[in-house]
């Protein structure tokens, strides 16, 4: 079995593309991503991953931190992080 090929690799540093941002919706108590003329809810591990993006830290670094924070195996965290970040990069919500 081969792993899925992701557009995002561990060495990359990502940030939100202009016009996109993560924010906590206080009224509905959910995390959302604001985007041009829409907003979408992000759930589960996603807000924890996205709040660490600053355009400087590598994805590998972020995976490491989350593995410690959530006391989970690194490869499990890596799979989720790379899948989410790749999807949002392909949608131009994030850029490398």
């Amino acid at each position, binding site marked *: 079995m081969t792993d899925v090929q992701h557009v995002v690799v561990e060495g990359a540093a990502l940030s939100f593309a202009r016009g996109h941002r993560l924010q906590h919706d206080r009224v509905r108590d959910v995390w959302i991503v604001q985007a041009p*003329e829409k907003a979408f809810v992000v759930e589960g591990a996603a807000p924890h991953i996205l709040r660490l993006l600053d355009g400087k830290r590598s994805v590998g670094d972020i995976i490491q931190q989350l593995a410690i924070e959530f006391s989970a195996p690194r490869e499990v965290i890596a799979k989720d992080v790379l899948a989410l970040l790749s999807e949002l990069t392909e949608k131009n919500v994030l850029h490398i």
Partner: protein
Amino acid sequence: MTLPSPPMSLLAELTHRCPLSCPYCSNPLELERKAAELDTATWTAVLEQAAELGVLQVHFSGGEPMARPDLVELVSVARRLNLYSNLITSGVLLDEPKLEVLDRAGLDHIQLSFQDVTEAGAERIGGLKGAQARKVAAARLIRASGIPMTLNFVVHRENVARIPEMFALARELGAGRVEIAHTQYYGWGLKNRDALLPSREQLEESTRAVEAERAKGGLSIDYVTPDYHADRPKPCMGGWGQRFVNVTPSGRVLPCHAAEIIPDVSFPNVKDVTLSEIWNISPLFNMFRGTDWMPEPCRSCERKERDWGGCRCQALALTGNAANTDPVCSLSPFHNLVEQAGSQKTEFVYRGR
């Protein structure tokens, strides 16, 4: 009593003043005057109340919102409140210094309108000489600033054949998104319907042009169809009083920008009542909220929570009663009114000319 879900979006119509005079303008037939416009402090309070209520995005619109000297200040307020700010503009008043201060104030996105791709077509609709060149210049400035940009084209019988050129212009100008919106027939649009409504063949051709462009990729496309040629109505505003709130230049609060034509109800004003009270308990916002108000054929329809009975303003304008099923629906007893629409009129009635 449980409160309704909070609104997602606020359409802040800062002014009805505009250098253009398009015959499908979404402003009401009775334009509000400059002297009646809310002041900066009141708009600031409106934004604060909107954020408190749960609004996530504010669309600064008009008229031409850049005609208001306090636009930059209001964008800063939106930024401070973590509201996503969108400027809906014709671009004809935009220059580099103005864009720079808007950018610094934290403007998130710009929706720039074009009336056509040709100068003649644009001037016939907008009525402002030289507007097209100013819009192209505005688009280049926005592109250079890095602020994400959507180009908006309202299409109708006279320009619908040029949709492929509209996409080409959007790509040339570096817009990330394009909105191709068929004219909606309320207010000015309804007044000019017989000169604007495309034929069914033109509609089909426009849909093919949009699909062909989508297949190319690289451009995010919003396509709004004219519901006159549809069998089922659109979920107007995502349902009355469910997602969207509109504040007019003088502070009236509406469930949609055309709602002032609804008779026998009072229109609450932010100068008298808070936005939250208006959203939650005003008779206007509860009038057509949910499904309890629905007549047949909506009441027993399986689609009633998908299209919410369509558009109340269209029902009123065409059938005389806002509580009727939207006549666009083929199940409506008034559907023939929609089928008969569209003769070959060619004269426009313009606002403010």
